[in-house]
C-alpha cells in the first residue's frame, strides 16, 4: 500500500507509542514547508524537514534572461532582503564583465544593504514574537519597520522589491536631503529597538521559554555548516563583512556580535544585536560617503564575456553568508547561476536541535534558525 503513494506522502511505520505529526505546509507555524515530527507523548523523537513547496526555478529562469533582466526575478526569493540577495549576483557579474564601480555607488549599496538587513530582521522578529505568543513583539517591529521602508522607498522608489542594484552601480542617486532624513530615522529606529530589551529580551517569560532549548554546540555549528546568526550564537566569530570584506566594508568599523550559549535565546538575540550594529554602520557610511559623483557606469546593451568564465561571490545577508556562482559562456545570458543560500544550510541543523525537545518548544527553536522557506527552495 505504501509503495503506491508518492514519496512525499508515504506513511511512516510507527510503533504504538510514537505518533507521526505533520506540521505544515499550510499552517503558518511552519512557514511554507512541512516538518514531519515523530512524537512520544510530548517529546520529539525525530524531525524530518520537508522543504520544496515554494520552489520557483529561479536558477533555471536565470539561464534564459540576460544579465540585467535577471535582476527583478532574482530578488523574489527574499523580498524583504532583496538588496542582499542581489548583492553577490551583481558583484559576480561586475567581476565577469570587468566593471569598476564608482566609489559613491559602493557606499550607497552598503546603506541599502544594511537597511534591508534591518527590514528583514524586523519582519523575522515580528514572526518570532507572535509564534511565542507575544503580540506586542509582533506589533512593534511591524510598525517600526515602516521607518526603514520609508527610507528605502525614498531611495529606490519601491517599498519591497527594489531592483536597485545593477552591474555597474546603483540605478539612481540618492534624493536630495536624504542624508539628514536617513540619520534622523535611523537614530530613532535604534532608540526604538533598544526598548525591545525590556519588553522582550529581558522578559523572564521569554527567557524561560527559550533558554536551553535547542542547544547547538560550537562543534556542531561548524560541522553542519551553519552560517550567520546561528553560527555566531554558537560562539563562532564569523562575519563575511569582516572576514572577506566586499565593496567598502573594509573601510568601515564593523563589530561582530557573538554569543556563546547556542540556544534559542542566543539565536534570537544575535540578529537584534546585529541591527544595532547596522545602525552604527549606516551612520559611519553617511559620514564617509563622497558627497557627489557618479553612481552608475554605463554598460553596453546586452553585455557578455569573451569566453567561458566563472565567478563565485558571497556576502553576509540578513541570515548568513549568501553566495552566487555564475558561469558565463560568451552569450548574453549566463550559462548557469547557482545561489548558495543560508536558509538551507541552517535548516540542516534543525533535526538535531529538536530531538528530545518538547513539541511546545518547536516554534521557538524552528523560528530561531532565521529560516526563510522561499529562499531555501529558490
Amino acid at each position, binding site marked *: 500500500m505504501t509503495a503506491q503513494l508518492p514519496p512525499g506522502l508515504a506513511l511512516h511505520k510507527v510503533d504504538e507509542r510514537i505518533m507521526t505529526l505533520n506540521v505544515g505546509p499550510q499552517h503558518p507555524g511552519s512557514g511554507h514547508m512541512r516538518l514531519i515530527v515523530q512524537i512520544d507523548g510530548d517529546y520529539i523523537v525525530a524531525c524530518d524537514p520537508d522543504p520544496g513547496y515554494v520552489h520557483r526555478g529561479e536558477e533555471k529562469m536565470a539561464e*534564459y*534572461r*540576460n544579465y*540585467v*533582466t*535577471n*535582476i*527583478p*526575478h532574482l530578488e523574489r526569493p527574499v523580498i524583504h532582503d532583496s538588496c542582499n540577495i542581489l548583492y553577490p549576483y551583481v558583484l559576480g557579474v561586475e567581476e565577469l564583465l570587468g566593471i569598476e564601480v564608482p566609489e559613491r555607488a559602493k557606499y550607497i549599496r552598503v546603506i541599502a544593504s544594511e537597511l534591508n538587513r534591518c527590514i528583514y530582521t524586523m519582519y523575522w522578529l515580528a514572526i518570532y514574537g507572535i509564534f511565542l505568543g507575544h503580540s*506586542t513583539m509582533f506589533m512593534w517591529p511591524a*510598525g517600526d519597520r*515602516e*521607518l526603514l521602508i*520609508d527610507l528605502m*522607498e*525614498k*531611495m*529606490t*522608489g*519601491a517599498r519591497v*522589491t527594489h*531592483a536597485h542594484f545593477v552591474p555597474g552601480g546603483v*540605478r*539612481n*542617486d*540618492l*534624493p*536630495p536631503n*536624504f542624508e539628514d532624513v536617513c540619520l*534622523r*530615522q535611523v537614530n*530613532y529606529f535604534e532608540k526604538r529597538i533598544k*526598548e525591545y530589551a*525590556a*519588553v*522582550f529580551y*529581558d*522578559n*523572564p*517569560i521569554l*527567557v524561560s521559554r527559550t533558554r536551553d532549548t535547542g542547544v547547538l554546540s560550537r562543534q556542531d555549528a561548524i560541522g553542519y555548516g551553519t552560517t550567520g546568526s546561528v553560527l555566531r550564537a554558537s560562539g563562532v566569530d564569523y562575519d563575511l563583512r569582516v572576514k572577506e570584506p566586499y565593496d567598502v566594508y573594509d573601510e568601515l568599523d564593523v563589530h561582530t556580535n557573538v554569543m556563546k550559549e547556542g540556544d534559542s535565546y542566543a539565536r534570537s538575540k544575535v540578529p537584534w544585536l546585529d541591527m544595532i550594529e547596522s545602525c552604527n554602520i549606516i551612520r559611519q557610511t553617511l559620514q564617509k560617503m563622497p558627497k557627489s559623483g*557618479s*553612481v*552608475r*557606469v*554605463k554598460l553596453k546593451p546586452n553585455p557578455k564575456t569573451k569566453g567561458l568564465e566563472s565567478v563565485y561571490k558571497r556576502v553576509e545577508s540578513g541570515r548568513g553568508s549568501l553566495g552566487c556562482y555564475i558561469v558565463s559562456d560568451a552569450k548574453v545570458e549566463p550559462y548557469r547561476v547557482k545561489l548558495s543560500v543560508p536558509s538551507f544550510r541552517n535548516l540542516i541543523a534543525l533535526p538535531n536541535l529538536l530531538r528530545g525537545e518538547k513539541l511546545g518548544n518547536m516554534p521557538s527553536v524552528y523560528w530561531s534558525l532565521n529560516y526563510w522557506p522561499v529562499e531555501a527552495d529558490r
Partner: protein
Amino acid sequence: MNTATGIIRALNSGIKHIATKRFTLRYPEEKLKFVGDGYQFDPSTGVGIAGLKGRHMLFHDHCTGCQLCSIACEGVAEAIAMVKVPEEQKQNKKSIMPQIDYGKCVFCGLCVDACPFYALYMTNDYELSSFSKEGLIYTPAQLQVKPFVAQDSEIQISDRGATHG
C-alpha cells in the same frame, strides 16, 4: 534580575507607550508624501532620478515606436505590448506605442531605463486597482494623462515618538 522585576519592567515599558503619539497612517484619508515626481531616467548620463516607481506616463511627442521598452520587459513581466495608435492621435513613424498591462507589471522600472528618448517616466500614482482585468490595461491615450496624486503625510519624529504628521 528576578522574575517579578522583569515582568514589571516589561509591563512598564508597554505602559509608557500610552503617552506616545499614534504612528499609524490613516490610509485613505491621509496619503504618504513621496520624494520628487516619480522615477525618471536620464539617458545622457545613464543614471536615474530617485522617485516612486508607480504608474507610467508616456509622452506621445517623444515616443518613436522603437520598442526598446517592450524588449526590456520581455524577460521580466511581458507587460508592455506595442499597439497601433488611432488616426486622430499623435503619431510616430511606425504609428505604434506601448500599452501597459498592470496586471503583469512588477514596477521594476527597467523599461524607463531602456527608453533613450525621454518618452517613458514613472509617476507617483500607485492606486491602480480595478474591478476587471481589462481595466488594468492602460492604452497609450490613458498613459498620456498625468495623474493627480494627493500627498500630505510625512514621518515626523519628536520626543513623543514618530508619527505620520
